[in-house]
């Protein structure tokens, strides 16, 4: 056990509970808003009756979709990829839980009481919850503009699949199902909005301040500079706060009423705001008898929910990751996202990838078992290696899948039998590997300011949400500049003061913003060198930086950074840019090929489980996460991200599912939607594999092991008990049913 090397000045405020979240933020004179939500999964909205609500003492106003759509200065819908989401419902209700009206009151109590008094007049329409069913010709249609409920379609063809199918000795097929799930950040979504002199100012719990700024500017038809978005630390996000969601409602109400609005979601509303894409993955793989993968066909249907959010493009991200981390000469892939009358799906930690890895890594073990090959050996034989061509046609480099696999296998003592289980129970081990792209193209700008007192301020729009971005950027800047971390501060994002960043997501911050920071420091150092050269009257090339000072390379008198700025001077500012190009938007959706990502996320997991054969209950005895980290900036944070992602994944593996009945979510609370407790989580181990290159770029590690966890556990369950479960979560009931079916099948074959 090691004491943490963590110079994190936030630690005390965090542990003691001092204000640091948007939830802790208030604006003088604020009104409180509460959302009235659709009771129906799909309905024609005839009217909203605010009478009783308006009679509730303390209620100031009730806003409806008609108020928004009747205002010519506002775009009544928003959405970056498709502007399909109404700020408040107009004409049609598309999911149970959709915002229909906003009750604004002088106090939270009055807003809550008023919410009960809003009448919704509507006529129910047929609804569809399942994305496969939404593709049927007679399925209910959600959006007139998008026939067949299409919300993104992507295709890839690589090599000559027909030839592959002819050559294959064996073909394995299966359909693997991941249910809708919920992020459950502990802090709910919260937004404060106020207008002053035609300018909108918003505080919101977002992972993407500039995205929210641009979306709000579009809603109000303003220049982006007329909108200011600030955030503070987030009490967890996991993708749930990566999109504009409640901000337009708060901003519209604030403008209408001329007073600041505070809108904070209740827990059930967080479940009804954004969720994980349910997905069915149909996978067929042709192999040679020696275990070589020859050809693969993957067909994925993602459930986008009622509104597009990121689904059209995210489905393409799924396509890029669908072939899996293997060398396969012939691949055909077809990925769809479809609208349904369910909670809109958005980015979710391990986005679009967990569903795929569950499929291809479960099937990998099915192939191994059927061919009588050790599952690790089968993977070893097929994993992508440096220089291999991927199904997009690009040659991949800096690959570490082999090391990750061996590390994960070693962590559970692969090849050594499990310790004997108590009577009635069996034990087994499993491994899995995963491949993921990162957000490409993307852009991050950082400014590093040096003040005359020697303090350094990093202006960055990266959001601290528990992943340790502030600590990482502090360290990166301090190291690059050669100063103590205590001199560096990283204020909260504020689109008026911090430069552009695409978003804090896709495990990209340490790498993208980190790179921008290093470049900003380079810029700053150049400026310092020039000043020092002028001051000392020597050529800039003869100078070197050391310990916050500049002097001749060979040694001699040095000038500190502080001395180069006279008191009262404005701070010296260095600016750095990270920008990536290409990626999915540059590709033809129906013929995907080309450069996918600035780097490939690589991870692996291993698990040992015990299965109670009488109840089907799975206990994870140990679990290991391996991530490729490039260069590690902060070992403690990397370990937490890695292990935290395993804990998160164990929830979706064993217990999490958003359940719909008659089109309505029936478990939008933490008593019925269960997330892992400390007792549900075994002792965890993790490894961050680093590049041998000391200058390697750091990779985020928050999602690398995650997609591999569910298949590793499912494979361990199979190894232990013979139960192959192709539906998540691995509930005891599913396992028991499978054990019973296997027993019957054995009995039937004369066993």
């Amino acid at each position, binding site marked *: 056990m090691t004491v943490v090397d963590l110079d994190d000045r936030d630690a005390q405020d965090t542990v003691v509970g001092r204000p640091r979240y948007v939830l802790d933020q208030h604006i003088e004179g604020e009104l409180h808003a509460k959302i009235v939500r659709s009771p129906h999964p799909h309905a024609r909205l005839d009217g909203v009756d605010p009478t009783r609500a308006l009679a509730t003492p303390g209620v100031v106003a009730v806003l409806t979709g008609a108020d928004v759509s009747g205002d010519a200065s506002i775009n009544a819908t928003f959405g970056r990829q498709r502007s399909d989401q109404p700020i408040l419902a107009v004409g049609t209700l598309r999911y149970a839980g959709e915002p229909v009206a906003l009750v604004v009151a002088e106090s939270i109590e009055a807003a809550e009481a008023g919410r*009960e008094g809003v009448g919704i007049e509507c006529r129910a329409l047929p609804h569809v919850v399942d994305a496969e069913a939404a593709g049927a010709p007679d399925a209910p249609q959600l959006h007139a503009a998008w026939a067949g409920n299409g919300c993104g379609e992507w295709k890839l063809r690589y090599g000559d699949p027909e030839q592959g199918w002819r050559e294959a000795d064996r073909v394995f097929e299966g359909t693997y199902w991941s249910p809708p799930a919920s992020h459950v950040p502990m802090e709910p979504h919260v937004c404060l909005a106020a207008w002053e002199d035609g300018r909108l100012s918003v505080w919101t719990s977002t992972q993407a301040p500039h995205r929210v700024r641009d979306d709000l500017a579009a809603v109000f038809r303003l220049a982006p500079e007329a909108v200011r978005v600030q955030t503070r630390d987030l009490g967890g996000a996991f993708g749930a706060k990566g999109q504009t969601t409640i901000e337009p409602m708060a901003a519209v109400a604030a403008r209408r009423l001329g007073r600041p609005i505070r809108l904070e979601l209740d827990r059930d509303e967080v479940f009804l705001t954004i969720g994980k894409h349910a997905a069915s993955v149909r996978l067929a793989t042709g192999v040679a008898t020696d275990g070589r993968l020859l050809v693969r066909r993957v067909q994925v249907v993602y459930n986008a929910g009622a509104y597009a959010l990121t689904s059209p493009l995210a489905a393409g991200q799924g396509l890029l990751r669908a072939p899996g981390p293997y060398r396969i000469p012939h691949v055909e892939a077809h990925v769809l996202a479809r609208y349904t009358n369910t909670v809109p799906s958005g980015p979710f930690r391990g986005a679009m990838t967990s569903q795929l890895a569950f499929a291809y890594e479960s099937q990998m073990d099915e192939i191994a078992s059927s061919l009588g090959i050790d599952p690790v050996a089968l993977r070893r034989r097929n994993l992508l290696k440096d220089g291999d061509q991927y199904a997009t046609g690009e040659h991949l480099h800096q690959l570490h899948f082999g090391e990750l696999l061996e590390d994960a296998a070693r962590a559970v003592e692969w090849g050594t039998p499990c310790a004997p289980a108590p009577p009635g129970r069996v034990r087994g081990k499993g491994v899995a590997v995963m491949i993921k792209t990162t957000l490409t193209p993307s852009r991050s700008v950082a400014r590093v300011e040096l003040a005359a007192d020697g303090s350094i301020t990093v202006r960055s729009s990266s959001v601290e949400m528990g992943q340790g971005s502030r600590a990482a950027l502090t360290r990166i800047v301090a190291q690059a500049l050669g100063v103590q971390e205590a001199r560096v501060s990283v204020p909260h994002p504020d689109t008026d003061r911090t430069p552009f960043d695409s978003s804090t997501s896709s495990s990209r911050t340490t790498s993208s913003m980190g790179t921008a920071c290093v470049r900003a420091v380079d810029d700053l150092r150049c400026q310092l060198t020039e000043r020092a050269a002028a001051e000392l009257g020597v050529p800039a090339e003869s100078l070197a930086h050391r310990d916050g000072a500049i002097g001749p390379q060979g040694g001699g008198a040095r000038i500190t950074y502080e001395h180069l700025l006279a008191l009262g001077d404005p701070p010296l500012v260095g600016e750095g840019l990270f920008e990536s190009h290409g990626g999915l938007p540059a590709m033809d959706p129906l013929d995907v090929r080309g450069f996918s990502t600035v780097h490939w996320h690589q991870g692996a997991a291993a698990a040992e489980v015990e299965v109670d054969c009488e109840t089907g*209950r799975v206990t994870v005895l140990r679990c290991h996460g391996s991530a490729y980290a490039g260069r590690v900036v902060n070992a403690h944070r990397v370990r937490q991200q890695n292990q935290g992602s395993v804990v998160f994944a164990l929830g979706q593996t064993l*217990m999490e599912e958003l359940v719909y009945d008659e089109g309505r979510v*029936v478990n939008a609370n933490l008593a019925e939607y269960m*997330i892992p*407790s400390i007792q549900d989580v075994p002792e965890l181990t993790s490894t961050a594999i680093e590049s041998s290159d000391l200058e390697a770029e750091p990779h985020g590690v928050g999602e690398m092991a995650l997609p591999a966890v569910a298949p590793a556990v499912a494979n361990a369950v199979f190894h232990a008990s013979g139960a192959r479960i192709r539906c998540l979560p691995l509930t*005891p009931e599913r396992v*028991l049913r499978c054990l019973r079916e296997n027993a019957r099948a054995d009995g039937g074959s004369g066993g």
Partner: protein
Amino acid sequence: MPLRYVEPSSVLETCALLRSNRDARLIAGGTAVVLMLRQRLIDPSLLIGLRRVPGLDSITAASQWLSIGAAVTLQQVADSDRVRALAPSLAAACQEVGNVRVRNRATLGGNLAEADYASDPPAVLASLGAVVCTAAPEGGGRRIPVSDLITDYYTTQLTSDEVVLRVEVPLIDGRRSAYVKYRSRSSEDRPCVGVAASLVPDPQGWVASLEVVVGAVTSTPQRMTTATEGVVGARLDEARAGAVAAAVAAAIHPIADGRGSAWYRTQVIEVMVRRALAMVVA
């Protein structure tokens, strides 16, 4: 409607308040009542806090009975040396409820009055033959066997002006009791199946009487008298225990909810009855 909060200082005063305010609710730890208020499932005009009513917060034992005051918290029941010695399955079941914060606030009387089908203590109390003692205006107090108290989901036979005073658990020499809680999701889940077993052996160690009560699988705890009849006077060996378990599973038509389907519950009931019986025999 405006809501008042009062704290009467005697049982009599409490009964009178209940009688004169028909939509009043008693509140002790509040873990159930506040939840219902928050979810707007109830809309009382008066909340009657019980914390100043004397005599509801003690655990006492006499030769025949262990008596637990209605306002004793579930954690106090679980921690009580007396309860652990005299009714170990009750202590175990109370320790399994919710989390420590809920157990610190929720009371035994409140737990019974709430009559949540997915709660642990009622099945155990029924298996031990416990009796609820109540007070009502004009001397209308009663003794109600716990096995008769709960009549449906969240419904008891308590009248609107009746107050639970205490729960009495009969003490029987040599009795062996156990409670098995089976959770199908997180460690924090309520029971998918709860099985309480209570065995009184005869001098030879054979079964003089056996109670098996299954909780969380139907609207009320299921007391399985027919399924256990066959083993009275016999040795409860593995085969007989298995037969009892199978009979119990066959006799119950379980509900389906997020914790398991009816089919699954039937399978698990059999397993858990077997495990509970193994514990009382061992």
